């Protein structure tokens, strides 16, 4: 009962906040556009080539370097809307979908430029990476649904 009240209270708070935000006469700060204002050339974007560092975000942190796929976690936590300018959810769901049958490297076998995780022998190598740093496994496989791929061996 208390849980339901908190949920309803949360929704009420959300609605009031929405009304306040809509009625606000104050000028708004910088918000990310829904899509990147200029069409980007195909290939890896190096954001700092065009953007200066006096904006809301540090653009160099978004440079899609060779290992950006490995390191984008902190940026997504803070600037999900910046990712959404170019990537629809289905791009993220290849790896982050709550239950996807195929490994990202299986779905996109020919996309060797995408640095998809778990490529090649990773079933064998994950025994080592998992012992060395299990926190990196937990981020994606840390709930009952995303851990279905772990269950056949780990129970």
């Amino acid at each position, binding site marked *: 009962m208390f849980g339901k009240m*908190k949920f309803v209270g949360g929704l009420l708070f959300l609605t009031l906040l929405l009304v306040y935000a809509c009625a606000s006469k104050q000028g708004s700060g910088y918000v990310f556009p829904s899509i990147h204002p200029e069409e980007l050339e195909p290939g890896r974007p190096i954001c700092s080539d065009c953007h200066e560092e006096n904006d809301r975000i540090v653009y160099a942190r978004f440079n899609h370097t060779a290992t950006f796929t490995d390191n984008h976690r902190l940026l997504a936590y*803070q600037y999900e809307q910046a990712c959404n300018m170019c990537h629809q959810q289905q791009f993220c769901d290849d790896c982050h979908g709550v239950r996807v049958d195929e490994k990202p490297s299986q779905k996109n*076998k020919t996309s060797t*430029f995408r640095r998809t995780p778990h490529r090649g022998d990773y079933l064998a190598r994950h025994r080592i990476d998992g012992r*060395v740093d299990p*926190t990196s496994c937990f981020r994606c496989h840390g709930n009952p649904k995303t851990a279905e791929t772990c269950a056949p061996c780990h129970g």
Partner: protein
Amino acid sequence: MKIEKFVKVFSCCALGCLIAPGWLTAGQLEVTSHSSLALYERDTSTDKSSTLIPFYEYLGLNYLTDDEALSFYGYGWGRLNLTDNNYYEQKNDGEILAGYLKYRFDKANTSMMLGRQQLFSGVANASLDGLSMQAALGASFDISLYGGSPVALTEDGRSGDSILGGRIANYRSGLYELGLSYKKVRNDSTDDDEKLGLDISLNLPYSIGFGGFSSFNMLTESWAEHSYEMLVQAGSFQIRPFLQLFQYDDYFSSTDSPNPFKLLATTGEELTVIGAEVDWFGAESYEVNLKAKNIDYDLRGDSSQYISGLVIKHLEDLCQVGIELGVMNGDTSQNDYLMGRAFVYWTRLPESFPVEFISSDLILVGYGEDIYGQSNSTFISLGAGKTFFAKALALKFSLDYSSDPYFDNDFSAKLVAEYTYGKE
């Protein structure tokens, strides 16, 4: 009505309501389809080397009204096993990964999303069936809030399951952004996970950026994680030192943590990762990346080191060729490996070629100690593809070979058809 069924019905109705009044024009609807047919062999509980032919369909729908205020986004996958065996737990399977309506208000840069959605916001990295909103509050604050039922906890039913949270951020362009986030997850009416997050981004002088994230576990009342990085740009160099600290008892402590993580939440271990990456964007479109990190364990009293080097030659579009070498020096010899990779995605082919690109991947790994009697592994993938109808349709084919501790002389083939309708 079960929520799973509700999500399916909601997704269909929402799209139907948008389309039915005749608002639809070709430029407003985008449909993406990724269909694939694979062929390989696997052992099943009853047969050895049983042939598998799974057919996968990933379907995405994106519909935007003319005034760009209201949109619908849906995405999901389905699988048919075209052979008669028991390799898969369910012969045919599928999942709706997203199905939401989004409304952008004119004022205050506000938007709302209703339906199944994936959230990355501060401490939240979750899929939920529910409502979320984002709004700018004045010139230096913005806020996001969400609530609903977590998709990840559907295995034991959804009664008493909920997820609630949000993030508020204060920022000054060119200087800083500071975010405070909260997430609470309940499963079967008991607290499963409750975290408070603090994230920061600083724009420092001399092209130096600093950012990171800390999370506090409110159920165990202790810090779960601190992860911070700096970014220094100096000419064609980009240097990224980073530091991560984890306390296992607080990081893995969710009551629904699956195995093998559940066991780690009772070890009292603390993990410290410290390292740096250097990227060099050299002449002739070369990119060189060097990475080194030390992974230290408090209780195990030992450490592991990983060092890697990567060289890529980038050409136009995504055309590239690269090599990578990585060495894991584990705390014990069973955690050692040496990995080498060479990869190609090549679009500069003569016009007489029947395909537009070729791709290749070679991965060789040697293990410090044998795994199931194997000391090394080999993986080779060869692919090619061609587009049709002004690139609306792409056909891709790949052939893989692997020999590793799990699969001995394993061959697989895959044919993919990707179709996009309505993309301008």
